């Protein structure tokens, strides 16, 4: 059963990813990206990380993908021009990616990992909460500051400064 589900999600994830890089329409690329993200959420469910799956959907589908769609729509003129999305070095890029894939394939195929057969107790939410406010509290705070800075930075960058009106 699980391999079957895994294959379904793999098709979603990898197919979506392939769609992102092959389609000529940027808007479809974004939709494919969403498909890929959803597949990854499924991956996380299979990996007993339900919370992460929900985070994946909320953040990637609900926020990042919507942002990307907005960005695409705001730069709509680019899309109607219908010029090829690929640049001049795409062949070299494809080769690099392929080489990378085959080089990296050596790792999962050759390395013996110190696998563990223990089964987690299932209170991953509690564990996550404790870890975030325990051992990882400082990275947690740093990330929250980072998010705040990104929020403010994004607003300042994206604001149209040419016609700001002062009441």
């Amino acid at each position, binding site marked *: 059963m699980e391999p079957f589900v895994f294959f379904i999600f793999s098709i979603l994830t990898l197919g979506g990813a392939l769609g992102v890089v092959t389609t000529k329409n940027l808007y479809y690329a974004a939709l494919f990206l969403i498909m890929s993200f959803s597949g990854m959420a499924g991956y996380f469910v299979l990996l007993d990380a339900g919370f992460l799956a929900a985070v994946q959907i909320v953040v990637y589908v609900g926020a990042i993908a919507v942002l990307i769609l907005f960005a695409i729509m705001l730069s709509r003129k680019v899309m109607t021009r219908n010029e090829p999305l690929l640049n001049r070095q795409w062949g070299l890029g494809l080769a690099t990616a392929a080489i*990378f894939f085959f*080089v990296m394939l*050596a790792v999962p195929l050759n390395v013996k990992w110190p696998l563990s057969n223990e089964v987690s107790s299932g209170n991953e939410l509690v564990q996550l909460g404790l870890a975030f406010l325990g051992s990882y509290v400082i990275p947690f705070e740093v990330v929250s500051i980072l998010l705040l800075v990104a929020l403010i930075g994004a607003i300042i960058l994206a604001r149209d400064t040419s016609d700001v009106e002062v009441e």
Partner: protein
Amino acid sequence: MEKLLLLTPLIPIFPLLAFVIIIFGANKNNKLSAWLAIGGIGLSTLTSWLVIAGTIMGGHHVQAEGWRLPIPWMPTGEIVFNMGVGVDGFTAAMLFMVPLVCLLIFIYASEYMEGDPRYARFFAYVSLFAFGMLTLVIADNLLLLFMAWEVMGLCSYLLIGFWFEKTSAKRAGLKAFLTTRIGDVLLFAGMLILYSYTRTLTFHELFKPETLEMLSGTMMWGIPVSALISLLVFGGAVGKSAQFPLHVWLPDAMEGPTPVSALIHAATMVSAGVYLVARMLPLFAIVPDGALRWVAIIGAITAFFGATIGIAQNDIKRVLAYSTISQLGYMMIALGLGGFLAGVFHLLTHAFFKALLFLGSGSIIHAVEHGAHHVNDHHTDPQDMMNMGGLYGRMKRTAWAYFFGTAALIGIFPLAGFWSKDEILAEAWLQWQEAGFMSLPFWAWLAGTLGAFLTALYMGRQIGLVFFGKPRTEAAAHAQEPGNRMTIPLLVLAFFAATLGFINVPFIKGGWLHHFAGEVHAASHALHLEAIPFQVSVAVVSSIVALGGFFLGWAMYRNLKAGQQDPLEKMLGPVFTVLKNKYYVDELYTAIFIKPTVKLATLCAKFDYDWVINPIVNTVGRIGVVSAIISAKFDEIVIDGLGVLGTARFFKWTGKELRLTQSGQVSNYLLTIALSSLTLVGMYLFFIRM
């Protein structure tokens, strides 16, 4: 029982809430803000009583060992820094005094401050002040204590300079802030050293025998760490509790409103220093030779020295201020001689009768001010005792409360001050008997006894000047007793000033307070924690001294006429002038610290502009000009011809070739990065792993 103790963290929360609400919401509404402040501290008082009840029910276990609520704060990886609250007998005793006195002062202030344009702000500040002191008392570690300590420092600045339109008030606030800051820095340094050696700041962990042993055994710069820390911590207490030589801020603190003076001098600020020393006493006690001795010496100097200045002051509040300095000296004597409980006992009783005296003086000032308004006189200083006289007939309630406070302060049997001051003197006396004549305890006893005489003298002088004789000004003649909200707190305080001594009378179970609070430091062997038997000789001597001093002062000043010369001045001559000018300590500090600093700055400026730097700069400039002319020739011939143009040609050629790689295309750069990292990974896999 435990349930009641769980309420401890709530005690300081109420005043804090009052502060926040007043600042952010109620600052337009005077009545509401006063009620909020009073309500906040009232709830604190109630909660404190519940906690005290819990401590009493908890018996020896809670009173001696303490009950703690550690709150993990800042869990960084493995180490968790706990910052909790704790209650033991000592804390409970403080919790009886602090919120109650604060409550009475707040009620008093609600009438006293009426008509002030910043009425609401005043209550916000005093609430914050009370929050600071309550947090300090219930803190179970030095860091939280220090935070509260700093909150109080801030509040003292804000409150002493509350009437900041007056230059003197502004300066007094600044002075208090800067002077106590010297002590704070010392205390903070002590804390840092302590933490670096012990990795904890929690009291009960610090006072474990093995920790103390480690501290006294370890050396730093050739002296035991414990000695270093103790002296630094004591430095903090010297600043906060206005001990010699950092006492200068305290008399100036009189510039604040009178309730603030009462708050600072009785319940909060200055007790914090004594509290700190008392709390850290085990650390002082293990220092092989010395830390406690210094506490006692400083205490004795302060006790005598403060009392002598007190007899020559004319400002009613300044007399009390020097009296506070002197009484704090007594507490330090007790702590320095190892008499933990004697010091604590005096701290508690002193808070009540000194608050009473300050509020009483406030009430007198208020009355005289009222009188001055009545006769349209705006030049009389309402705080000058020489402008008063005969007030007994006009304000009986205040007068009687004031008499009780005075009697308690000078130690008339059987009021509170008698028991607490005599315990200190008895402690010194007993140790003197052991250590012999001319030893430290002897000098401490002598200073204390003389101080007691002087105390009685200046209080007698004050009573005589203020309440008896004929009114020396029109304002005094028209003084009027203030309303109930001011006089009732006085009566309550008078009750406690009269009776509080009985909690530690040696005849009752050998001192009840000893059993309640005295065993906090039971683990420390260097301290004298057992109750001291009643010393008849000490009591007789001090009683005679006190009564004698009082009647002397009363008799001399009772019938002083307006404009007449001060009889003591006639007697003492130049000595009186020295005392009147507080031994010229302020002038000394101005001469030693402030003027040289200004001079130094002027010198530095001169050094810069006229003598050294500017001439050097100018000379260097001239040399530069000359050498530039020479090197210009050299440049034209050698550098330009061969070096620069040659190098430039070389780089022009290489640049022309290499710039082709900088396409400005992000994708190209990305590809380069990807290929390079791929190469590196490939090399790693190929050469190292295989």
